């Protein structure tokens, strides 16, 4: 899960491997806030799968690639 300057850098880094998914850094920020924002809360409890899937969907990450186990 890495940051890159451009699609060209991603393609070179993949070196023929199957690409995963690429999103903008702006969307990454949305995702990080939604996913990790409560991690130090005193009343934190583990997210169940459905909660995490809902976070992904809320920031627009849908489809087979983003389907959690």
């Amino acid at each position, binding site marked *: *899960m*890495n*940051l*890159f*300057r*451009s*699609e060209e*850098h*991603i393609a*070179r*880094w*993949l070196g023929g*491997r199957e*690409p*995963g*998914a*690429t*999103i*903008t*850094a*702006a*969307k*990454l*920020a949305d*995702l*990080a*806030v939604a*996913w*990790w*924002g409560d*991690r*130090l809360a*005193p009343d*934190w*409890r*583990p997210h169940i799968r459905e909660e995490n899937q809902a976070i*992904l969907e809320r920031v627009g990450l849908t489809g*087979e*690639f*983003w*389907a*959690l*186990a």
Partner: protein
Amino acid sequence: MEETDLELRRRTYALFVEHGRAPAAGELGDADEVVGGWRRLAAEHALVLNPGTDELRMLNPFSVVPTAYRVHAGGRWWYGNCAWDAVGICAALHTDGRIETSCPDCGERLAVEVRDERVDDESLLFHVLVPAAHWWDDIVFT
């Protein structure tokens, strides 16, 4: 998840954030009991242990060991497990920050400022290689 394990997790994270380093099991109580609790928390993906040593490896989004993602936030340097976690450290601490890393392809230095939950260079791209269903197959690789 048992309340006692949640409390252990809370104290583990609190010590980590307070001191900027992972606590040893003995700092949190009887070492065997603490390791037992950490193992149960790891089974629930609430933290990650080093296989074989039972030492803390990840207090997600924080990495206990150095990584390619350095984060300055809250007056201290941290390590993120990946780019997502690096931004997540600012989110978890509810503070602005600065992420320093390099392009995995060419090695060019990349620095990102996080201000008010936004990154200052939104032209950068975030690539996820492993499909979500397999993230926990090997979380260190993911």
